[in-house]
C-alpha cells in the first residue's frame, strides 16, 4: 500500500463529522448551505489525524475547514479538561498580509462560535490563537511566552526564529498539528526548502509526530508535492492522503483577439481595439480583475483606461503590484473586498489567496505563460462556491495567440504543467545547520538523518553534507581565524563520534537576524545626468542594459549612459522609441510542459494543412477561442509552413540558417520555454564559438534561440553531434561562470549561507557593498576548493532552478536516440516564427575567453572611437 494516496470521491461526506461540537455545527450551518468539495473530505481526514494534502482552487474553503477542524479538536480536549497552556497547532503561511486572512478564517469564526455556544448555553472551552511574524512587537511576544496560544499563526521565516527561541520553543514540544497553507507558492522555491527543514527540525523536537496538513491551489505533480509536505522517514515518504478537487469547478475560458489581422493592423489600432475590448468587458461585469504580467504594464493600463473614460474609471479603478507601498496595496485590497472598485489591474501580486471579495471576470492581457498559473488566476473569480470562474485572455500577437490557445485547452481539461522542487540547496542547509548548532550539541550522523527527512534533502550526498559542515565550521580559514569564520565547532567526542554545536557568542544573534531566503532587493537609483531623480531599476534589468539603449520608465523614455556603484545615469529622450523591452526581466518563462504541447498542436495543424484540410473546424470544436483568433493561428502556422516548408513541433526541431551580409544567424526553433532554451543556447554557443574560433552572440526566448555567428560555413550537424557528445552540465557551468548572473546569484547564496550578513552588530550591509566584493568572494572560494559548497550551490541554482539543465539534457538525449529530429533550412529573411526572436535587441555576448580578450577589444574600441572623433 502506497503511503501517498489520492482519496477518491466515495469517501466524501455531506455532513460535518458526528462528534463536532453542537455549537460549531450550528455556527457552520447558519452561515453555509453545504460543504464545499474539499471540505467534504478535509473535515474527516483531519479529525482522523491523517497527514493530508488538500488541493483545491483558491476560495473553496479549505483554510476555513482546516481551522474549524482544529478548533473542534481543541474544544473536545477542553471538554475533557485536557486543554493545557501550550501550542497545539502551528499554521504557516507565506502571505505577506497574514493578518486579514487570519481574521477571516480563524478569529471571526472563533468569535462567532463562542456566541453560538453562549446562545445555546453551553460552556465553550477557551481557545487562544495568536499571530507571530517579523512585525509582532516584543511585548506581544512576551505575552505569548507567558500565555501560549493554542493555535500559533506564523510565516516560514518566523518559524525559523521560533525554533531557536530558547524558552518559546519549549511550548511547541507537544504540537499536534502543522498546517502549511499556500503550498503551491512555496514548494518551487528556496523559501519552501527553508520551511521544509524547519518542519523536520520541529518534528525532531516534538514528543509525538504532529499531523501535517497541506493546503494547495491547483498544481502538479501532486504526489511530489505531497512528499514535500510530509517528508521522508527511513528512506521512504511518510503517509499522506491527497484530496485533489482542483477540477471541481468548470472553468469558463476563452481566448480573444482584438482584431482579425494581428500582423497588418497598425499597432495603434490593435491597441485601441484592445482597450475597447477591456472597457466593454469591465462595463459588462460587476468586478473585473485584470492581470498584465508586469508592473509597468499595470500602470499603463490603468492610466489608459482612465483617459478613455474618466467619468467611469476615476475612483473605480485600482492598481496593485509589488512596487507599491504596503498601505496603498492594502487600500486597494480593502476597496476591492468591499465592492467599491469596478476593476483592479495587477501584475502578479494578486495571484495569491488574499480575500478580494466578489470577482466575476478575470481578464488576462497576453500569455500568463503557464497552465497552473492561468488556472490559479482565473480561479480568483467566481467565489460563490457555485459560480464558475470566468477568464478571458486577450492576445496581441500571433505567437501569443497560439500559445494561449493550447494553454486554455489544457487549463480547461486540467492538464497541468509540472513545477520543479529545488533539491540539495546547500546554502539553506548551511543556515539551518547554524540554527541547529545554536540549540544543542548534535551528533553529526543524527543531524544527517533529520536533514534527510526533508524531501528537498532526502538524496543529500554524505560528502556534500560534510563539506557543508566544514564550511559552517570555518575550516577553510586558518586555525586561529576559525573563531571568526566558524559558526559551529566540529569535533570528535570521547568515543570518536563527530559532533557539532554553536561557536561564538554572537552566532545565535547572527542566525536570528539573518534568517530567510529572499535576497535583499537591490534597487539602483536612476538619475538624469543633470541630477534629476527618475526612479529605481532592479539588478536584473540593469545587467542587460548597454550604453545607448532606450527604455521606458514611469511612462517616459530614457537613454542609458552608464552606471556607477548603485546609481544609473540616463538622458531623457522623449522623442525616441524604446530599443529595449522594459519588462524583459519580469517576464515569466513559458513552462516546458506547455511548450511541448504547443509543439504537438503545431504538428496537428501542420498535418491538416499538408493534407489540404481546413483546420478551423477542428480548432473550433476542441478549443476555446473566438473566430478572429482561429484565423490568426491558422494563418500564422500556414505562413510558416509555406515559407519555410516546415513548422517546428515537439518532435522535429527546425533550425534556420539565416544569412545577413556580415553574419549568420543560426535560429533554433525550440519551443521548450526560456529556462530550457537558456541552457541549450549557452551550451550550443560555447561549442559553436569553439568550432568557429569567434565570439558568438546569443538571443533567447520561450520559443527558441539564436546563435549570432560570423558569416562562415557552419557545420550544423557537426555542431549538434558535438553537443550530444559533450558533458552538458560541465559545458553549461563553464559558459555561466563569467556572467553577471553568476556573480549575482553567488551573492544571494553567500547571503543565505551566512557568509555575507545583511545585519551584523547593528549594522546593515548595503547591497552596493555586498555587490562590489562578491566577485572577490567567489574567486577566493573557488581557490579554496572547486566544490566549495557555496560555489557548487550557485552553479546548481543557476543550471537547475534558473535554467533547466535536466529537460535540456533529455532533449539532447532525444535527439541522440532519434526520438527528436531536426530539419535545416536556409533563409535570407527570417521565417515568421523567428521574427520575435530576431527582433529582440537583447542579447548576451558569449565571452570567447575571459577578461583578457574583453579588455583588449574594449581598449581597441576606445582607441578607435577616439580616432574617428578626431581626438
Amino acid at each position, binding site marked *: 500500500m502506497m503511503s501517498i494516496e489520492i482519496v477518491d470521491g466515495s469517501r466524501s461526506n455531506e455532513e460535518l463529522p458526528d462528534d463536532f461540537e453542537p455549537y460549531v455545527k450550528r455556527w457552520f450551518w447558519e452561515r453555509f448551505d453545504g460543504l464545499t468539495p474539499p471540505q467534504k473530505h478535509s473535515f474527516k481526514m483531519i479529525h482522523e489525524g491523517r497527514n493530508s494534502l488538500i488541493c483545491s482552487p483558491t476560495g473553496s474553503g479549505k483554510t476555513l475547514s482546516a481551522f474549524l477542524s482544529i478548533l473542534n479538536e481543541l474544544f473536545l480536549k477542553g471538554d475533557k479538561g485536557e486543554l493545557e497552556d501550550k501550542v497545539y497547532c502551528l499554521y504557516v503561511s507565506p502571505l505577506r498580509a497574514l493578518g486579514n486572512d487570519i481574521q477571516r478564517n480563524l478569529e471571526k469564526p472563533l468569535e462567532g462560535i463562542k456566541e453560538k455556544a453562549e446562545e445555546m448555553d453551553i460552556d465553550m472551552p477557551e481557545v487562544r490563537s495568536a499571530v507571530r511574524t517579523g512585525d509582532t512587537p516584543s511585548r506581544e511576544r512576551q505575552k505569548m511566552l507567558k500565555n501560549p496560544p493554542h493555535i500559533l499563526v506564523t510565516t516560514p521565516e518566523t518559524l525559523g526564529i521560533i525554533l531557536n527561541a530558547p524558552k518559546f520553543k519549549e511550548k511547541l514540544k507537544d504540537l499536534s498539528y502543522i498546517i502549511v497553507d499556500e503550498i503551491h507558492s512555496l514548494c518551487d522555491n528556496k523559501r519552501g526548502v527553508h520551511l521544509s527543514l524547519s518542519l523536520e527540525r520541529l518534528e525532531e523536537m516534538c514528543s509525538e509526530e504532529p499531523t501535517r496538513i497541506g493546503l494547495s491551489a491547483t498544481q502538479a505533480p501532486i504526489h511530489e508535492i505531497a512528499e514535500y509536505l510530509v517528508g521522508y522517514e527511513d528512506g521512504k515518504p511518510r503517509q499522506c492522503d491527497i484530496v485533489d478537487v482542483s477540477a471541481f469547478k468548470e472553468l469558463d475560458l476563452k481566448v480573444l483577439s482584438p482584431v482579425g489581422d494581428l500582423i497588418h493592423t497598425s499597432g495603434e489600432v490593435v491597441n485601441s481595439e484592445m482597450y475597447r475590448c477591456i472597457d466593454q468587458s469591465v462595463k459588462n461585469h460587476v468586478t473585473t480583475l485584470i492581470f498584465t504580467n508586469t508592473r509597468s504594464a499595470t500602470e499603463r493600463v490603468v492610466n489608459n483606461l482612465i483617459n478613455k473614460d474618466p467619468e467611469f474609471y476615476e475612483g473605480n479603478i485600482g492598481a496593485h503590484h509589488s512596487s507599491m507601498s504596503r498601505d496603498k496595496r492594502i487600500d486597494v485590497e480593502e476597496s476591492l473586498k468591499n465592492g467599491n472598485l469596478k476593476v483592479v489591474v495587477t501584475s502578479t501580486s494578486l495571484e495569491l489567496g488574499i480575500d478580494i471579495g466578489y470577482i466575476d471576470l478575470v481578464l488576462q492581457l497576453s500569455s500568463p505563460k503557464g497552465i497552473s498559473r492561468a488556472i490559479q488566476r482565473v480561479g480568483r473569480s467566481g467565489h460563490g462556491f457555485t459560480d464558475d470562474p470566468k477568464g478571458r485572455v486577450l492576445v496581441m500577437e500571433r505567437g501569443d495567440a497560439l500559445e494561449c490557445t493550447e494553454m486554455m485547452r489544457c487549463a480547461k481539461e486540467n492538464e497541468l504543467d509540472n513545477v520543479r522542487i529545488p533539491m540539495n540547496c546547500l546554502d539553506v542547509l548551511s543556515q539551518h545547520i547554524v540554527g541547529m548548532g545554536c540549540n544543542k550539541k548534535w551528533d553529526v550522523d543524527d543531524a544527517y538523518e533529520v536533514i534527510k527527512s526533508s524531501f528537498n534533502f532526502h538524496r543529500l550526498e554524505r560528502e556534500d553534507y560534510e563539506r557543508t559542515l566544514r564550511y559552517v565550521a570555518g575550516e577553510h580559514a586558518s586555525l586561529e581565524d576559525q573563531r571568526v*569564520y566558524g559558526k559551529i565547532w566540529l569535533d570528535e567526542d570521547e568515543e570518536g563520534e563527530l559532533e557539532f554545536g554553536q561557536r561564538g557568542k554572537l552566532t545565535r544573534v547572527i542566525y536570528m537576524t539573518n534568517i530567510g531566503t529572499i535576497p535583499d532587493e537591490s534597487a539602483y537609483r536612476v538619475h538624469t545626468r543633470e541630477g534629476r531623480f527618475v526612479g529605481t531599476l532592479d539588478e536584473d534589468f540593469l545587467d542587460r542594459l548597454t550604453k545607448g539603449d532606450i527604455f521606458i520608465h514611469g511612462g517616459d523614455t530614457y537613454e542609458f549612459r*552608464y552606471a556607477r556603484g548603485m546609481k544609473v545615469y540616463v538622458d531623457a529622450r522623449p522623442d525616441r522609441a524604446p530599443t529595449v523591452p522594459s519588462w524583459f526581466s519580469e517576464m515569466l518563462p513559458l513552462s516546458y510542459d506547455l511548450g511541448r504541447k504547443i509543439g504537438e498542436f503545431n504538428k496537428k495543424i501542420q498535418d491538416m494543412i499538408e493534407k489540404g484540410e481546413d483546420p478551423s473546424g477542428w480548432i473550433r470544436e476542441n478549443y476555446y477561442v473566438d473566430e478572429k483568433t482561429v484565423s490568426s493561428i491558422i494563418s500564422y502556422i500556414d505562413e510558416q509552413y509555406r515559407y519555410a516548408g516546415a513548422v517546428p513541433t515537439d518532435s522535429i526541431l527546425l533550425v534556420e540558417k539565416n544569412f545577413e551580409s556580415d553574419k549568420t544567424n543560426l535560429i533554433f526553433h525550440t519551443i521548450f520555454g526560456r529556462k530550457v532554451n537558456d541552457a541549450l543556447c549557452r551550451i550550443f554557443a560555447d561549442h559553436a564559438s569553439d568550432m568557429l574560433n569567434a565570439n558568438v552572440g546569443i538571443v533567447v526566448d520561450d520559443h527558441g534561440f539564436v546563435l549570432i555567428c560570423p558569416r562562415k560555413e557552419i557545420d550544423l550537424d557537426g555542431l549538434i553531434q558535438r553537443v550530444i557528445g559533450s558533458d552538458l552540465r560541465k559545458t553549461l557551468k563553464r559558459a555561466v561562470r563569467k556572467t553577471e548572473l553568476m556573480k549575482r546569484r553567488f551573492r544571494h547564496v553567500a547571503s543565505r549561507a551566512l557568509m555575507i550578513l545583511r545585519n551584523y552588530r547593528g549594522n546593515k550591509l548595503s547591497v552596493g557593498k555586498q555587490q562590489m566584493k562578491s566577485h572577490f568572494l567567489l574567486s577566493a572560494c573557488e581557490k579554496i576548493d572547486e566544490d566549495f559548497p557555496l560555489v557548487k550551490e550557485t552553479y546548481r541554482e543557476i543550471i537547475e532552478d534558473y535554467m533547466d539543465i535536466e529537460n535540456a539534457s533529455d532533449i539532447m538525449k532525444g535527439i541522440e536516440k532519434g526520438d527528436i529530429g531536426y530539419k535545416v533550412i536556409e533563409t535570407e529573411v527570417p521565417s515568421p516564427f523567428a521574427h520575435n526572436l530576431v527582433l529582440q535587441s537583447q542579447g548576451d555576448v558569449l565571452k570567447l575567453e575571459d577578461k583578457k580578450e574583453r*579588455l583588449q577589444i574594449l581598449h581597441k574600441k576606445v582607441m578607435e572611437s577616439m580616432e574617428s572623433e578626431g581626438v
Partner: protein
Amino acid sequence: MKLFNRFEIVGNHPALYDPKKKMLMVSDLHLGLESLMADAGMFMPKFQLSEMKDDISDMLEKKDVERLLVCGDIKHEFSKTSYGERKEVEEFIEFFDELVGKIYLVKGNHDNYLIYSVKRYPDVELEELFVFDDVCIIHGHEKHERIKGLDLDHIIIGHEHPALTLTDEIGAREKIRCFLYGRTKDGKDLIVMPAFSGLAQGSTVNRVDNKDILSPVLKDLVDIGEMKAVGVDKEAGLFKFPKLKKLKDI
C-alpha cells in the same frame, strides 16, 4: 613599458621598478582588509597576503632589486577583535626582509601603530616621506609643504587607488586599475600608483571632476583631466589611454 623614461611597470603588475635605485615599488596593500570585512559581516576568506607574496616574489625574480618600497597603506585597520593583521604585516616584512636589502614603508592614513610592528627590523624604515635624490615618494593623504622647497624631478604617490570603468556596446562593464601620470603645475613628473590590493575599492577616475579626487596632494598639484592613464590587468596586460579628459564618456 616605462613612465617618464625611467620607471618600469613590471610585467602586468601594478608595480614600478626604478633601475637607478634598484627599487621595486608597490602601493596600498591593505593587508588585513578581510578581517575588517568580517567585522562588517562579510566573511571574505583571507587570501591577499599569500597572493601578494607570490606576485612580489615573481617580480623579484625578474628584476635586480635591492630595495622594496610600499607607498603607504601596507595594512588596513587593525581590527578591534583580531590580531591577525599585525601578524600579516609582520609576516610580510619577515618574508621580504630575507629577499631584499632594505624595505621602505611610507606611512599611509591606515598605517597607525605600524611602528610597533616595524620597530625590531633594522632594515625596515618607516617615514611619512622618502626622498631619493630627485624622487620624492609620499602616500598622498596629506600635503607636505617641504616638497615645494625640494629640488625634485619626480613625485610618486598612492592613496587614490585609480581605476578606469569602461563600458562597451556589448554591455561589458570592466573596471581596470591604472597608473596615472603627468606633469604637475610646477613642471614636475607625477605618478599616481594603483592599489596593489585588488580588494581595495578602486576609485573611477575617468568620470570624476577634480573636486571628487581623494588626494589633497593630487588636487593641489595637477588638473586631473590632463593626466594620462595606463591600465594594468594581471591577465590581460597593459593598456595605454590618452588624457583623462578625453575618457569622460566611455
